[in-house]
């Protein structure tokens, strides 16, 4: 094995060895299916990897691209550059320019007789034709996407056996004929590809075979919710959050919970409040427009101290924006979008796998602190499928709902040191109370008195401020006088950019914040000890994270903002360039 693929990008040293493959085709060509099978097979063979789906504006049947990255190590981000682009056809393929960068060392594969669009060919790369359609036709029930799959496996050194296993499993319902046709297709493709002359050896050596999962961030969030104790979900579908709900509906059922499809987001957030009031940890998933509709009632959860968890899988904004693409531009509304002074929790997963932990943690925090927690995931985390190590089993010791039997002189909103008051649940005799979004006395009676207001305001803030969030608040890696401060899905590319610099002997600190509210000034100050330059990296236009940091933290040294809106993801190269440019400035 040589490492042509890895050295071909000017600055990939230090980044995980990996292979990036784009599989393109128009509607019905089956690129997504083939891409998914390639990923699963790679997992079978002991690799890590990820796959992103990209498609045109058509509701269905438009052009599509499966973007894969495979590696012997876990990968958390795509590179911009692709080693291999294989197009089953070229219809509207130029739509993906920008998402797929090629260079001289890339290999571009097309069906025989096709014409590579200029936008693609001008990026460079060696063009190879394979008779995809023709080979498919020669097989009974054969399809070009399977031929392409075989060719790719051959090129990258993926054992066909792994593909066969995956195909047999995924086509089991369609019967043996379908399986046979597909296997014939991949064999034909593999054979054809082996004849391509002078092909560099793209193969990646798999690591030892521990339990590996294939999961999307949305599925991981669903599992995290159930692990955190969520048993009631009410929701209204919205791209790109729907898959959380689709995973949860049948799985909640298995664990004795339930998902209700509500008439709209106003209903779903309020159903949660009811579920939670009844003692059942409750969650919803949505995206920006839905979150906006929920803010009034999230404020009710805060004021009435009723735990709820809202997962916002962010997409391009503002307004309906770009529903199918990722952006981190809902940070502001998550932090500041409630009317009045309404302290609450905002957390963000920093990788696909971390969607599990962060959602579970959010549930724990909401329950323990009797408040609303917003989880800021995004389309790129939620809808990308990754091969990851089996996630650790974490159990939090839950708090919060402390009252299960009659207590003398029960005061639901009693003012105490920790700020968390005892909360009874319906069915508990002698502890009846009325939860209220009006300002209230310690017993819950509405009050407009200044003392009551300040006491309850202080209490609702204090309980969040005083809680010990431990090390979960951020991920801190490396040393160095330059630090990158980032969050969420921008963490992956930043991490990889820093690894690239590390390989050049340059040390850059990574601080990715999982806990965005309440603020953690002492912790961040400690993490920034000795830092002289801070680059703030985020995927939005308004530099929302940068301004949030300025507002709430005293940051040492020079601050610089790298805020890039969607729909294109921030790439490791971009961050690498920014850091290098700053160093040389």
């Amino acid at each position, binding site marked *: 094995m040589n490492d042509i693929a890895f050295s071909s990008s000017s600055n990939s040293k230090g980044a995980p060895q990996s292979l990036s493959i784009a599989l393109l085709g128009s509607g019905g060509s089956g690129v997504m299916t083939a891409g998914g099978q390639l990923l699963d097979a790679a997992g079978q063979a002991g690799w890590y990897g990820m796959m992103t789906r990209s498609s045109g504006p058509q509701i269905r049947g438009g052009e599509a691209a499966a973007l894969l990255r495979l590696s012997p190590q876990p990968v958390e981000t795509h590179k911009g550059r692709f080693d291999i682009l294989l197009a089953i056809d070229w219809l509207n393929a130029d739509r993906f320019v920008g998402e797929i960068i090629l260079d001289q060392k890339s290999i571009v594969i097309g069906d025989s007789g096709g014409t590579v669009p200029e936008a693609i060919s001008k990026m460079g790369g060696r063009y190879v034709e394979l008779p995809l359609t023709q080979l498919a036709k020669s097989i009974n029930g054969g399809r070009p996407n399977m031929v392409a799959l075989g060719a790719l496996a051959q090129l990258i050194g993926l054992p066909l056996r792994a593909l066969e296993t995956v195909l047999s499993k995924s086509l089991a319902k369609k019967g043996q004929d379908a399986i046979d046709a597909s296997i014939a297709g991949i064999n034909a493709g593999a054979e054809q590809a082996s004849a391509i002359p002078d092909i560099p050896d793209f193969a990646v050596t798999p690591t030892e075979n521990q339990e590996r999962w294939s999961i999307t961030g949305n599925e991981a969030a669903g599992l995290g919710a159930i692990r955190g104790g969520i048993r009631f979900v*009410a929701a209204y579908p919205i791209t790109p959050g729907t898959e959380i709900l689709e995973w949860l509906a049948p799985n909640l*059922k*298995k664990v*004795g919970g*339930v998902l209700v499809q509500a008439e709209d987001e106003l209903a779903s957030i309020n159903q949660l409040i009811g*579920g939670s009031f009844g003692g059942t940890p409750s969650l919803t998933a949505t995206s920006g427009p839905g979150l906006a509709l929920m803010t009034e009632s999230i404020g009710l959860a805060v004021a009435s101290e009723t735990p709820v968890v809202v997962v916002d899988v962010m997409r391009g904004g503002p307004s309906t924006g770009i529903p199918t693409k990722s952006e981190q531009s809902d940070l502001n509304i998550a932090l500041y979008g409630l009317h009045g002074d309404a302290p609450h929790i905002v957390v963000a997963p920093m990788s696909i796998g971390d969607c599990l932990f962060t959602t579970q943690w959010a549930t724990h925090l909401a329950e323990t602190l009797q408040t609303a927690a917003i989880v800021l995931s995004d389309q790129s985390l939620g809808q990308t499928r990754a091969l990851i190590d089996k996630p650790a089993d974490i159990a939090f010791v839950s708090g919060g709902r402390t009252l299960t039997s009659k207590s003398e002189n029960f005061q639901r909103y009693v003012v105490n040191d920790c700020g968390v008051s005892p909360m009874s649940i319906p*069915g508990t005799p002698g502890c009846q109370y009325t939860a209220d979004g009006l300002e209230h006395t310690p017993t819950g009676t*509405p009050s407009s008195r200044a003392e009551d207001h300040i006491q309850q305001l202080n209490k609702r803030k204090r309980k969040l401020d005083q809680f010990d969030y431990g090390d979960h608040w951020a991920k801190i890696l490396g040393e160095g006088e330059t630090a990158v401060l980032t969050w969420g899905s921008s963490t992956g590319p930043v991490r990889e950019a820093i690894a690239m610099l590390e390989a050049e002997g340059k040390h850059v600190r990574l601080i990715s914040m999982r806990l965005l509210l309440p603020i953690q000034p002492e912790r961040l100050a400690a993490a920034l000890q000795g830092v002289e330059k801070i680059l703030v990296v985020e995927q939005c236009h308004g530099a929302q994270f940068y301004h949030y940091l300025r507002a709430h933290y005293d940051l040492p040294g020079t601050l610089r903002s790298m805020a890039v809106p969607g729909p294109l993801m921030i790439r490791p190269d971009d961050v690498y360039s920014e850091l290098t440019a700053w160093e040389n400035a």
Partner: protein
Amino acid sequence: MDTVTQCPSLKPKDYKSGTKPVWCPGCGDYSVLLAITKAMAEMSLSPENVALVSGIGCSSRLPAYLNVYGFHAVHGRALPVATGLKVSRPDLTVLAAGGDGDGFSIGGNHFMHACRRNVDMTYIVMDNQVYGMTKGQASPTTDPDWDKSKLTPGGTKINPYYPLVIALASGANFIARASSTDPNGAAKVLVDAMRHPGFSFVHMLSPCVTFRPEQKDWKKMVRSAPVEPTTDPAIAAKRLMTDDNFFLGTLYKGDRPAYQPELKATVDNISELDKGFIL
């Protein structure tokens, strides 16, 4: 459905919390409060197994005056809160209550969908044909020519909203009207509603003496509906077409099964769910 623990010794007043209502002297809502406590006593409900959820408005202040679990939610959202509560806690007796603005204006969508969804709970709308809390604007049930609100000089000129008709059209499983001018009659209707499985809607006339003083006459205008409750939506529809807003009693009882997903785990351990992800 009265499946909860019973408490036969409680009197109506035992269901009151003792908190002094903010209502104007003479407000109809006092009698609604009374009727609810009578109904609860009649059904021997244990206060801790009952929850009443409301929105925002004078009428929505009700839960704080009861000795059951209560939720004073935001404007228009009593029904979804109650829905989430009942679906996840089918063991509780769940009521929702509020005003005509809360339930039919800002909360109108939830009302319609609650009727269709048919979760086993009772919804009481205290209709005074006005927004009391915000000092007297027209509500959906206000007559088009009521011109006392500065917001709609000359009247709304809009067709009023017929709550019972909408309830029937949306599939409510139980439809009744009661009046705060007759708390005993109202209590009976409430018992009937709470006992009926599925979503039961009680249209409760409750005068606003401050902004609609003419409603004091309602006492004289209400009368029992001269009919038995029907289970036939077509008959109910016909009946409601000629309804003049003052017939009291249970007007429709459907027999659709209540919506209640079963909450029973089928796996022993949640780690079973991991299996779907293992390669």
